Structures are given as C-alpha cells and as structure tokens.
C-alpha cells in the first residue's frame, strides 16, 4: 500500500450553496486525475469530513478539467447568516480536503 498526499497532486476551490458546500478538486496532470478518479470517492470524502459534513456527499466528474466536484450536504451549520461558523461559506474546505492522504496500490 502506497500513500499519496492529495495536496501534492491537486488543487481546488470551495464555496457554499445554502447549507451545502461544494469542493472542486483539480488534478495537476492526467496521471493525477486517474488517481483521484479512482480513489477520491464520495465515501472517502464523507469519511474524511466526519464531524463536519452531516449529510450525503455527491461526486461529479469533469474529466475535461481533470476535476471532480463534491457537494457536501448539511455541512455549514445552517448556511448563510444562520451559521455560527467562522467559515460559514466553506471557503477553507477545499484546503481541508487537500489534507487527505490517499491509499493507492
């Protein structure tokens, strides 16, 4: 089992839609995209955000941009001005996902 730090192969951006956050993750190259396409599943992301994301995680593929988009429901403490979080709009969640280490064979 080999481990790869997501931050070494990808970048991204995150934002809000109501109480859901979206995280777009973009691989730096095709090889990186193959890795995230295979290993960065909705389940892996959901587990990574345990205690932060309390809803389902949806994954969408954008191979044209070497990117994956994740929508994390029930994540921003109510969203908008309801949320008491410092990061009520999920601006730092893309960086939080880049903390992940992927296990690849």
């Amino acid at each position, binding site marked *: 089992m080999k481990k790869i730090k997501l931050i070494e192969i990808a*970048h*991204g*951006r995150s*934002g*809000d*839609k*109501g*109480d859901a956050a*979206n995280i*777009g*993750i*973009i691989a*730096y190259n095709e090889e990186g995209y193959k890795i995230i396409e295979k290993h960065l599943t909705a389940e892996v992301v959901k587990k*990574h*955000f*345990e*205690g*932060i994301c309390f809803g389902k995680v*949806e994954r*969408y*593929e*954008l*191979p*044209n*941009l*070497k*990117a994956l*988009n994740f*929508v994390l429901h029930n994540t921003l*403490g*109510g*969203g*908008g*001005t*309801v949320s*008491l*979080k*410092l*990061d009520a709009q999920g601006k*730092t969640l*893309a*960086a*939080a996902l*880049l*903390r992940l280490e992927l296990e690849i064979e």
Partner: protein
Amino acid sequence: MKEKIRIASGQGFWGDLINAPYNQVFGGEIDYLVMDYLAEVTMSILQKQKSKNPQLGYARDIPELMKSTLPECKKRNIKILTNGGGVNPVACANSVLEVAKQLNLNQLKVAVVLGDDIKDRIDELINLGAELKNMDTGEHISKIKDKILSANVYFGAFPIVEALQQDADIVITGRTTDTGLTLAPMIYEFGWKKNDYNLLAAGTVAGHILECGAQASGGNFLGDWKSIPNFAEIGFPIAEAYPSGEVIISKHKNTGGKVSFETVAEQLVYEIGDPKNYITPDCIADFTTIILDDLGDDRVRVYNVKGYPETEFFKVSCSYFDGYSSSATLTYSWPEALTKAKYADEILRKRLQNLNLNFDEIRTEFIGYNACHGPLSKQLDEDDINEIVLRVAVRSKDYNSVERFGKEIAPLILTGPPSVTGFAGGRPKPSEVVAYWPALISKELVHHQVKIYEV
C-alpha cells in the same frame, strides 16, 4: 456584426476592490463593463435600507464610480451593465443621471430592468397557484410568509438584451444572474437566438468565469499561489467573445495576477452542483464539455461548450427574519494558551446555563487551532502555542438571551484565566439572523419590464 467584443469584469461582489472598474475602463480596450454586486445576503440588507429610506436599496458605490468613469465610457462607447440596482434600480438610475447632469453629459440613456422584486406579490402569486416550496425542505411558503424580508426572481440575460436594443448606455437591474450580465452583450452584438443553446451556454460559461472578479485571474488561487505575480495590482478578467461562442479569457497588460488553465479551472468549479446541469434562466450549460486551452501570456481559450433548453421556471430567493445571533472573541497568550481558552469557554457556558438563557446553538472555535478545519486540524502542543483566539457565537429566537451573552464576555478578563486581551470593541450587539428560502416559480407568472431614463 462586430467580429469580437471585449467584456470586462469590474466587481465580484459588493465590497470588492473599489478601483477595479476604473482600472478596467482606463487600462485598455473594452466594449462592456459588467459588475455583479449581489449576493443573497445583499438583497436583504438593501431591502432593510429601502424600508428606512425609499431612496435607498441599491449599491451606493455606483454613483461614486460613475463620477470617475462615465465621461470616458461615453466617449469610447463602453456600455455598463450591473445588477447593483438591488431592490431599487430606479433610484440607482436616478443617482446615475444626477451624476451625468453634474458632469454636463447629455444624450445618456440609462435602462432599468424591473419585475424581479416579488416581495409585495407573494399573496397574489400564491392565489395564482405558485407554491414557492422550499427547494431543500419541500415546505410551503406560508411557513415564513409573514417574516419575509426580500423576495426576488433571478432574471437572465434577455431583459438586458432588450435594454441594449433600445440603445441603452447603462443597464441597471435588480436580481439578474451574474452570468446573464456577461451573456447579454454577446446575444445583442452577435444576434444569438433564444434557441442557440450551445452559444447561450458558451456565454454563460464566460459569465461564470467573470462573475467573481479576480477569482479567475489569480485571486484566491489554491494551486501554486505564491507564483501569482503582483497581487497588489491584480488585473480583473476580461472575456474576449466571438460570434462562434469561442471566448478568450485575459486581463489588461501590465496588471498583476495570472490567467492560466489552473486559475480559470478553479473558478469553473466554484459554487457548482451537477456540472452537466448548470441551470440558468437562459439555458442549461454542460460544464463537462468545456475545453480550456492555455495560450500562454495570460490568455485562455474557452470553447466547445454544449447547452440545452432552459427550464420553465425562474429561481426565487426569499430571505426571512429568523432570530438573533452574536459572536465574541478573546485572545489568550502563552503559556498554556489553548488550555486557558478552553477553561474560559467552560466558565462562560456554565454562567450562561446558570442564567437560564435560551439558545438554539452555542458554538466555540479556537482561532489559531481549529476554527477552519475543525476535527481535521492537526494536534498541537497545547502548552506551547503562542496565542489562541477564543471565539464563541450564539443564536436564539430570544433577543434578551443574545443580548445578555454579549454582557458575559468582558467579565471573563477579570474573573477567569490569565494573560487575556483583545476586548476593546465593547459588548457585541445581537444582529438579526437572515435565513434563505430558495424556490422555483413558473416563468408565466413573472414578467420583466424595461424602462429608459435619459438626460
């Protein structure tokens, strides 16, 4: 027909760099200046301002900006498109006309798009069969009807096109989609039709790239961000659009920032859901068909976008009053900074409990440790951290509970753990919580009007 047009993004939100629109106008050739001022929270703030003064309710940066840019725009026939009219586009237009008079400009046509504000039509629309169900929860609008602060339909590009066809120099709208501002001049200049879905989608994608200002040209870039040159003088993005739907994203020469595959790609994935179904009032764009071609020299070609027919609904955004909230911070220093902050939090919570106050939520974050990434934050040596900011926030339907919370912060300085500072701003006051109610409404129930004002 023009061979190409250059559309410049001047503002990514209300509060963005004040000089950005000025720099777009004076920094090089452009044909259109588009400015997005409206976030969801902005509409309720503007509605509140209008309820206090019927002459307010729009982005008041606009008249100020006009003083410095209007004569040049008029001279070079640069048209200005903005949704900064907020909940009072007519007052915004009047303020612009006032500036034009002061500058002795004449033959200036300002168009206003009306009809998006349905706050006073809710009962009428319900009677007409609109349910305005909450898109997330499915609940009926009647649940919040009496607490509504603002209610606006998102219009697309076509009302602006109508205004341009009437020779408007400036188009001021209320709640128009950010993407519609950029798409409209392409439809107008290139004669695109309502069923040219691929072209409408191409313009929509360009709009998505431009709508957050410099976020497409190096700002907030999470890749190799230190490689972005000259953030201080960052250039805002420009879409060079062609009749074929091809768009080249660039920025003015001699500005900071960077336009590359990576910076544009980051903006493309910003605040999207299903990329195959990017829904706007004008069309549905398929983001998985976009091809980005980095041409170097801060130019990225965007093409091959596929689009599909628009839906039969407009999106509606209602904001409503939902109680009060407040937050406060205190800073603790080494030694044992984090331990002190945790103690202070416990003391505060015990006191709030003893007072029998009523909160829907109390949230504690330790800035410098876990405020951004929560449980994902790296464990630190609690005894050795230099300093920690304790941030506590509360929310309640009960004003008095939130107000009392604000009075329990400063006492911690003399009645809690030591080496604490950073409480100079006075007692935090309760602020009103504004919640959102996203809904859909049949396009048949809402109609826009275009009005022209001139000097």
